[in-house]
């Protein structure tokens, strides 16, 4: 079949620990939206109940389990936020950053 089914299909499957299609209950977990400038963390999982395509995009952008992310800066009005991941810098709105659960890096 076409490339579309090979590449796009994983978006719709439950893929296992890396990407979870339904949001999990993480009461105490921190997300990318909770970081302060300079803080470095490691990604645990990327999940979005409303928008699996958006979660897939985040993983295509480098936010995969195990990836190191550093919060670089916030915009003057607190949104969006610049992160450093996979060797480059990317700005995300806090609404999307909230989908990425992280754990602090012990440096």
């Amino acid at each position, binding site marked *: *079949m*076409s*490339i*579309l089914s*090979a*590449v*796009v299909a*994983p*978006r719709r499957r439950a*893929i*296992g*620990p*890396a*990407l979870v299609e339904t949001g999990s209950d993480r009461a105490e977990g921190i997300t990318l939206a909770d970081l302060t400038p300079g803080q470095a963390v490691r990604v645990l999982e990327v999940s979005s109940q*409303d*928008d699996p*395509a*958006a979660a*897939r*995009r*985040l*993983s*295509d*952008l*480098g936010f*995969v*389990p*195990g*990836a190191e992310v550093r919060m670089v*800066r916030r*915009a*003057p*009005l*607190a*949104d*969006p936020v*610049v992160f*450093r*991941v*996979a*060797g*480059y*810098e*990317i*700005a*995300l*709105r806090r*609404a*999307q950053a909230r989908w990425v659960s992280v754990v602090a890096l012990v440096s």
Partner: protein
Amino acid sequence: MTLDAGHCAVPGEDRVGLDEQLPTLALVGSPNSGKTTLFNALTGLRAKTGNYPGVTVTRYVGRFSVDDQEMVLEDLPGTYSLAAISPDEQVVADVLDLDHPALARPDALVVTLDATTLRRSLNMLAQVLATGLPACVVLTFTDELTRRQGSLDVAAFERAVGVPVLTVTGGRRQELGPLRDLLLGWSAWPVPALPPPTEPDEVPGWIESVLTTSDYVLPKVDERTRRIDAVLLHPVWGSVVFFAAMFVFFQVIFTLASPVQGWLEDLFGFLGTQVRVHVGNRYLASFLADGILGGVGGVVTFLPQIALLFVLISIMEASGYMSRAAFLMDRVMAKAGLEGRAFVALLSSLACAIPGIMATRTLPSMRDRIATMMGAPLMTCSARLPVYVLLVGLLVSPSARIGPVGAQGVIMFALYVVGALSAMASAWVFSRLGRRSGPLLPFYMEMPPYRMPSARSVGLAVWDACRGFLRKVGKIILGTTVVLWVLLNLPTHSDAAMSAAGVDVHDSSAVSSYTIDHSVAAGIGRAVEPIFEPLGFDWRINVGILASLSARETFVATMGQVAAAAHPDQPAQGLKHLTVQSGSREGEPLFTAPVLAALLVFFLYALQCASTIGVLRRESGSWKWPAIAFGYLFVVAWVMAFLTQLVVGMLT
């Protein structure tokens, strides 16, 4: 295969330059990976633009030759993944799709990977290799990698990915020799025996293994970028620099373009005079001078602004500053349902909506583009100024004051503010309406390191924009001008008939006034009087509005003609004396305060600009959106003018 509804001039070839006989390669890569610079370096001016079938995504196809073998190269839209979330990205997935009915697959792919962001870029390579097409890798920014103390064993990398790998820096022409030779031999490229995995949980493992084998050392944070961003993205200094930059941006478009536009207008005015002098028949002369030359001149005078705008936007994008500007403005734009990059488009619209609407190309989301396009015409463009100046001058005298400031200035400022707020509100409404057509595009924006823009790429982007504008929009503007000329100047009247009606045939303003009073346009103006009566407009104002459909500033000259003013460019005196000809207010001055205020508000909202309609048609891909824009803006203009007339009538 149809492309852009154009017919094939040569069998097997289409307007965009694709040719079944020639080897066709396609450039794939993420945005900011140097892909388009590479495309420009290889194809230069031999690139044509068109559209992909069924969508408004621009298609760039060019030719280049190696050793007498001509080859076709297509620059696919930049994308981060083949799991597409926007129409641009869907195009890439479709082009690479084995089974797509309307698009022919390229023969081979050239994948550009930014050497400084390999960990992310390899994700794209994995997906591309899974398509099974022969592919090669071009590693870009390798000089930057070294400068930032990163490194890569290219030979090991080539073994690890299983396809040919070449490095380039900046796409300089001298380096292209090895690349062109490689492209010539596309049919001999090795293909990996086993494509990399594409499942999102397996790809990171593949990437990690490849990078380790290639001894990839991650480049350090770019010091130059870090230092510049410390200022440009500083909460206080960054905002100051940003507003200064936007002010300069706006001034350049407004002020720098003006003299050039003035020269062009003088040129066409001169040509018009020559025509009038040398062409015997008065009506033919007028048709050629006002209709044709006026129309062509109207198109050409936009070019300086468009060219300037695209120079600035290309530099902003290529250098990396655009994403910083968008970053600072995103929160404000989000209130209107838009994103940071829409700010530049709206700002440009303050000079003229045409370049502003064209600037929406920088927005990745189609819905954002449409919403911004619907709002852009509401920004107070420079063509409204002559109208505002005329009407405000009739409304309040120059010496009137509100507190310590001049009343005229206050009203002008208020018009600007209302325009901007209405633009944001309109964008918000269309953004919400568009939401039903799909989920919200997640906002993300790469912040690339600051890089020197290539003059060649900037030049080509400007050339591309101007050429497209002339071809597509020019036709619409010219057509409208001609149509309006016909409406305003026909039927013709012989000298004898005019003398019999009491017109002095040697007084040109009397002649033109008579012509317009008995023109088709006047007939239309009278016919639509019932619509505009509640606003207090009479058929003469209606004629002015009809004429200003081609361009707002023609309202002034048209009203001058109608009023048989001695000086058509300063019709104020003549207009003051106009009185209502029939109805309940017969005998009273036509331009009372409520009518003037209503007229001001009408011009604030109504889409009185054929050029804008033309650009909307081009940028949105169909007549649907310009029709919607014209329709909703007319309704809003009418309602707001009506309310204004009521309120001002009550206050005076």
